[in-house]
């Protein structure tokens, strides 16, 4: 896990002062991507921070859950931050930005409304890149145990004796 409260050796104030804003939701600095409030930061090792921030935004636009914070989307895609995957991601994000530019935006992150980004994604949804990212998210996002409570899902139950005394038939509104 490379997510950390702040980049090693930098205070939160220093981190924010050195970072430049990219898009609405993430702060991109030299070699890292951070939450606007610096609640977390991810230090990229192979993917350019701007590219990674776009990838995270793309992940959220594919499977938007407004109650799931960015950290979980970062966790879902950080596996691509490897020497092997980075070139393909860079190429895919470049194509995504090109599709945005064809619609008059400076970049994918330059868009305002989600619907504009969805239109851009629809235009590339048959590409191998889109399908790789989407397919990876199905397990990368939804198999994170930390997101299950956001959906109300309770996960493992054997160790608690199942639900026989914990509400298996507690529906009260029928």
């Amino acid at each position: 896990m490379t997510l950390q409260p702040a980049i090693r050796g930098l205070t939160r104030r220093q981190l924010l002062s050195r970072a430049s804003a990219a898009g609405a939701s993430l702060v991109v600095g030299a070699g890292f991507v951070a939450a606007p409030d610096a609640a977390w930061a991810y230090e990229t090792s192979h993917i350019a921070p701007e590219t990674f921030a776009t990838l995270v935004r793309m992940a959220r636009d594919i499977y938007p859950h407004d109650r799931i914070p960015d950290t979980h989307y970062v966790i879902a895609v950080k596996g691509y931050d490897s020497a092997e995957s980075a070139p393909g991601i860079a190429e895919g994000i470049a194509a995504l930005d090109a599709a945005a530019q064809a619609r008059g935006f400076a970049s994918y992150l330059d868009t305002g409304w989600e619907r504009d980004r969805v239109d851009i994604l629809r235009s590339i949804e048959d590409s191998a890149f889109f399908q790789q990212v989407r397919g990876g998210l199905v397990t990368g996002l939804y198999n994170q145990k930390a997101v299950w409570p956001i959906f109300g899902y309770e996960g493992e139950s054997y160790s608690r004796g199942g639900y026989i005394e914990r509400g298996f038939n507690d529906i009260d509104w029928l």
Partner: protein
Amino acid sequence: MAASFELTDDSVVVIIGTGAGGGVLANELAQKGVRVVALEAGGRYLPEDYVNDEWESFGQLAWLDPRTTSGDWRVAKDFSGLPAWIVKAVGGTTTHWAGASLRFQDHEWKALTTYGAVEGANLLDWPIDAAEMDPWYDLAEKKLGVTRTNGIAGLPGNNNYLLFERGAKALGYTQVHTGRMAINSAEYDGRSFCHQTGFCFQGCKWGAKWSAAYTDIPRGEATGNLEVRERAHAARILHDDAGKVTGVEYFDRDGNLQFQRARIVCVAGNSFESPRLLLNSASAMFPDGLANSSGQVGRNYMRHMTGSVYATFDKPVRMWRGTTMAGIISDEARHDPGRGFVGGYEMETLALGIPFMAAFLDPGAWGREFTTALDAYEYMAGMWLVGEDMPQDTNRVTLNADVKDQWGLPVANVHFDDHPNDIAMRNHAYRQGRAVYEAVGATRTFPTPPYPSTHNLGTNRMSERPGDGVVNRWGQSHDIPNLFVSDGSQFTTGAAENPTLTIVALAIRQADHIAREMAAQTL
């Protein structure tokens, strides 16, 4: 004490596969004093090993060896390398099954006679019927401890069921209850009662659901007549110049090719692996594969008409709590061509956890139409639709010479096109499923496409005439007297019901036949 037999011992019965067919057959033969070597491709996992985690369990238990797909079924697009969701382990898919234990309806043994010829379908009557199967079903229900048989109480209904039942009754359905389940409502046969844990598909950690892994297999081993060889992957069945099978070549756990001699070979590797093995066993004498003079090996693959309906409500349901398949509506299981199709279907509650719901609700979908459904997960109910599909000559398992498994053997290609009858039935079932939930105030419904198949049937079908199928009324191949098929691949037609109880009943009956013929020296 589990037995250990020599590779050169040609007095043993070799069974390939240890699931509902092979596992039960192995125990039943061992109980009668017949010596058995069971070859199981997977490892041994018991309740203490099972995990309440969908993907982790899938990695532990599922058959993940390569397979390929073709045809117009959506599984070929969404899960092209995974046509089936079945288990590779001692006990086979009895680890994963939901536990629904239904007898065929009488007319379903006579599909051709009852439905008449259906264009594009390859219907046939079974060579056996309800009266003949009755006593074997009795034995199977006792073995499995099926609820609502033999004075065993039904299971209590969970939230998913209570809502489903309310909707069913509002629609006027009358055959609605918590099912005939091989899940203990009270302690039975030394196994615990159901603790409403959920995760029935991941292996029951209480042992409340019947599985051959911890019932028939250890009991067979305890006789001293059964040796289960784990991680032994059957490669080829060999035969002599007289055309009788002589044993099975298999890869052992270390990848070494071994040859186990046999007096009789019984194939029970499921509807993909069983025909694949027969086809991979082609020889100069049997160039089209063993037991295949009819050309029927691999054909008439059936997977049941399936689909699901999920629905969201404005109040919580928490469908994942408790038995996964917690109840049934059987009103639509009848044959009533007035609905626009032959045969019928069952509606059975079903729940998936968030990880599998994300994978299966609408494979490939993205965006808010999809994610708002998952956001309402806690408010969601679900049912599975399962009905009789049409056997078709062209729905078949063939060898894919271009793709090899880890042993260098050609893999199975599974080709499936929906028959118009399957599509008409699915659309009817979607409408009725939606109506059940709308009757209790559903705010949105989801007609969910079929999952990778768990009910894999046909491909070595049973027939009266040798030209129409692969095996006779005993599951004995028409061509080779000491070669049997003992799994769901021998199904002539699929009926509407979940198949395990019938596979078990056929295995008990086949064991009785084989033991009798062996004693009479006719086998």
